């Protein structure tokens, strides 16, 4: 199969839940995990006579998202009803936006692994309310409306992505921006950040799109690229073997690592959209838009630029450290205490992230706090311990959450910078290795390293490395 002959065309639709206190159109709490049907009222259960009233904060967060994604914000837009029947849609329609969404024409720039940047267009962002949740049991479908009416924005990308990696990077960037700007908590497990992908394949260079397949339920970063990759290959294989791609909706089965048919596109849905008559036009005053702009939190790209400047970090380091808001905050906190940007960056990226990954933990739940890590870095910089010892200390800190000082004390890790103590250790090494000493004296100066290593061993690694180096040379040459 010659994948190279083909290219994929991918567009993503992301639903992000807005971090408001109350729901989109009623005063019920916007809260996950309560008992079934306790965060409900006449409005979100679609009782007769109930009416929606727009949550101002939801609008503000939506506008913030539009600004963060370089979108145009329309001072006037319209809510519309999308009519369809479903058990967890109590009104028989969803309040959404259709012909006139509040925001269009944006883009984000993503970093690719090739080192290039790619600009991905954003077609539109619109507001909509979430549906409830249906749980299918053997005896029937249980409908819980706690989630019904929770505020969402739907972010629709242009079909600008050409492979799974680009889609993954787009999604990561979007996720990070929404979290940075306190728009969405990004929790994918709870369904607060959901992604559907539209995928088609075509011969490279063709200008017509192939038949597209909608891929649903890819609600984890782990699966996004895998699922899209699989789907592209499946489609290429189908085309190569002369099959027709059928327009359908598929979902990712993470147990089998395949995509499966969810439903065939029967007759096209007829949602009978029309302007929501229970709501006025959605009007944003220019003054309010300006205020939201002024109060925008710093976005990842801005943070990245600031990091590079202030701490002399490389592009790569800065992009890793701004991968999530929590990580950036952690790093900033380390630097502000350690006053050593480069070392802080190295420690956070190499030691901390590595261990967190291995332990499958997020930076928010790191066993080592930013201040603890900063303290450790200070101890290296002041010469109290060596960098090598520090790694051992850090390992212990990560395991026990104890402070560096108490570990150093317990384990007697204080760095030996006393020349007399070091000299005696060096002399002992020379005594124990007379032949090497003779060779050194005969001109094999390469052996210097050997003596430094042995002396370090003799001090259980606690010797101040710079001082030790200096002393070994001095004593050998004496």
């Amino acid at each position, binding site marked *: 199969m010659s994948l190279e002959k083909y290219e994929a065309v991918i567009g993503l639709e992301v639903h992000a839940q807005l971090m408001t206190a109350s729901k989109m159109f009623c005063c019920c709490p916007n809260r996950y995990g309560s008992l079934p049907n306790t965060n409900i009222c006449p409005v979100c259960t679609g*009782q*007769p*006579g109930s009416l929606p009233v727009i949550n101002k904060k939801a609008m503000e967060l939506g506008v913030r998202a539009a600004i963060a994604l370089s979108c145009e914000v329309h001072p006037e837009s319209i809510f519309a009803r999308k009519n369809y029947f479903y058990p967890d849609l109590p009104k*028989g329609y969803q309040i959404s936006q259709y012909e006139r969404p509040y925001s269009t024409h944006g883009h984000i720039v993503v970093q690719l692994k090739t080192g290039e940047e790619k600009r991905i267009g954003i077609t539109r962002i619109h507001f909509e309310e979430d549906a409830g949740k249906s749980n299918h049991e053997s005896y029937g479908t249980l409908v819980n409306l706690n989630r019904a009416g929770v505020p969402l924005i739907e972010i629709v990308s242009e079909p600008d992505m050409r492979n799974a990696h680009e889609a993954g990077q787009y999604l990561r960037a979007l996720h990070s921006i929404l979290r940075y700007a306190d728009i969405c908590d990004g929790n994918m497990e709870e369904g607060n950040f959901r992604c559907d992908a539209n995928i088609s394949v075509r011969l490279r260079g063709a200008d017509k799109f192939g038949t597209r397949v909608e891929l649903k339920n890819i609600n984890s970063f782990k699966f996004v690229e895998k699922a899209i990759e699989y789907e592209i290959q499946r489609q290429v294989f189908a085309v190569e073997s002369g099959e027709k791609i059928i327009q359908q909706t598929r979902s990712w089965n993470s147990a089998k690592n395949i995509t499966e048919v969810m439903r065939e596109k029967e007759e096209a849905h007829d949602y009978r959209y029309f302007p929501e008559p229970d*709501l006025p036009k959605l009007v944003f005053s220019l003054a309010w838009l300006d205020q939201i702009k002024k109060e925008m939190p710093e976005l990842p790209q801005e943070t990245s630029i600031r990091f590079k400047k202030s701490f002399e970090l490389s592009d790569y380091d800065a992009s890793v450290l701004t991968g999530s808001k929590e990580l950036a905050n952690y790093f900033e906190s380390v630097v502000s205490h350690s006053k050593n940007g480069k070392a802080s960056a190295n420690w956070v990226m190499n030691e901390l992230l590595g261990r967190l990954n291995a332990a499958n933990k997020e930076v928010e739940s790191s066993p080592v706090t930013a201040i603890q890590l900063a303290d450790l870095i200070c101890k290296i910089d002041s010469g109290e311990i060596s960098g090598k010892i520090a790694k051992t200390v850090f390992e212990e800190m990560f395991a026990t959450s104890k402070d560096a000082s108490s570990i150093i004390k317990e384990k007697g890790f204080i760095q030996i910078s006393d020349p007399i103590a070091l000299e005696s250790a060096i002399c002992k090494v020379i005594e124990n290795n007379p032949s090497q000493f003779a060779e050194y004296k005969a001109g094999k100066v390469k052996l210097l390293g050997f003596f430094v290593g042995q002396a370090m061993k003799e001090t259980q690694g606690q010797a101040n490395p710079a001082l030790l180096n200096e002393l070994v040379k001095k004593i050998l040459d004496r």
Partner: protein
Amino acid sequence: MEFGTQTIWDLLSGYQKKQFKPSEVISGYLKNISERDEKLNSFLQVRPEETLAKARALDAKLDAAQNLPLFGIPVAIKDNFLVQGWQATAGSKVLSGYVSPYTATSVQRLEEMGAIIIGKVNCDEFAMGSSNENSAFGPVRNPWDLERVPGGSSGGSSAAVAAGLATVSLGTDTGGSIRQPASLCGLVGLKPSYGRVSRYGIVAYASSLDQVGPFSRTVWDSARVLEVMAGFDNKDATSSKHPVPRYTEELKSNTKRSFTLGVSRAWLEGVDLDVAKSFEAALEVFKQMGGKIVDIDLPHTKYALSTYYLIAPSEASSNLARYDGVHYGYRTQSAKSSEELYSRSRGEGIGREVKLRIMLGTYALSAGYYDAFYLKANQIRRKIQEDFEKAFTQCDFVVTPTSPSTAFKLGEKTDDPLKMYLSDIFTLPVNLAGLPGLSVSCGLDSKKLPIGFQLIGKPFGERELFIAAHQYEQIRGEFPLSSMAKGKG
């Protein structure tokens, strides 16, 4: 003492003079209901014990009666309003057994000001109809002639007041559902400006047209009910912040004002002879009061019927999607799939005319038809609105008969939907334009059936409507009571 024919004004002055207590008044009205309503079928629910208990609680506060503008006033509520603890069927089988979990803002405001709910009254299913023959709970009869309809959709609301079973009542008006039955039953009926009264808690028919309004015997009573329930509601995003005048204060003045009334002659074609005569007589009264009658042109009102029957059913098809048997209301017993559960619950629970309008609206909104139907209708709706705006540069009110005919016989117009729809040709454009419309009785036809005319005001011009109608009423004199209200039913 006999109760039933009193106005709010009468009851309030009686309370102040301590001539009677709320519990006596309420008992009197409950007695009327139990004696007379069997013939009318206007009440769908009464709760005598709860209602009397409320009245007795007010008895103790008789000294402070003047502090509450609706102290001890028995009000009948159309069954498409939600009142916590009461049923709300909207005249439909699909909502039979539904108990309201909350209270409509309009009703809550009346209750807070001392009104007592005497019962929930019958209506056309989901407020769709002009004769009250579309109720799942049987038709309502007109207290002036039991062979005839009381009008619709708020037929129970009009019949109850006209028969002396409630002092005033609330209805909803989407295309004439307050004004037409008020006219057919000899009452005052007001459809306020869109946004004047909160729609929160009324079962939606067509959201952009629905308004809440009162039925009463007098203009003063209408003004009193409106001043209590009108005004901004933070639960209804379409309610206006326009200040609410104390309408009844405005009616105290003795200085007579004269008004210019606009009449569109083209619009009046096809009106029954008796109605036309009575209407002309009413115009004469306004002239006597120093008023002027001017000819106006409303070229697009002739399209109001078609416009309305695209917009209202479209909104209704969506508003009524919630009645699917999942979360509340009627559920079929014979479904074999969840799709069937929806379709059968709806097919079995929803009545004939409502299904017709749901299908009409579904069609008008469906792919490929939206522009030609829904969008087009809304563009013409704007033209109808502009016609009125233009007319109001020449006159204070537009005036029409309320209905082209007086009360017709049951079954007379049920075969042809258009025949029925034409009952509302004078009222429909007012909803489309969002204007206030007030129907006031102006005479009886040769069969001794009431005739009404309609004053159409500028947006939020209810104050002027009341002043003009009140002046008219004083010259007209007291309007006759239905035979049933006189206790001779």
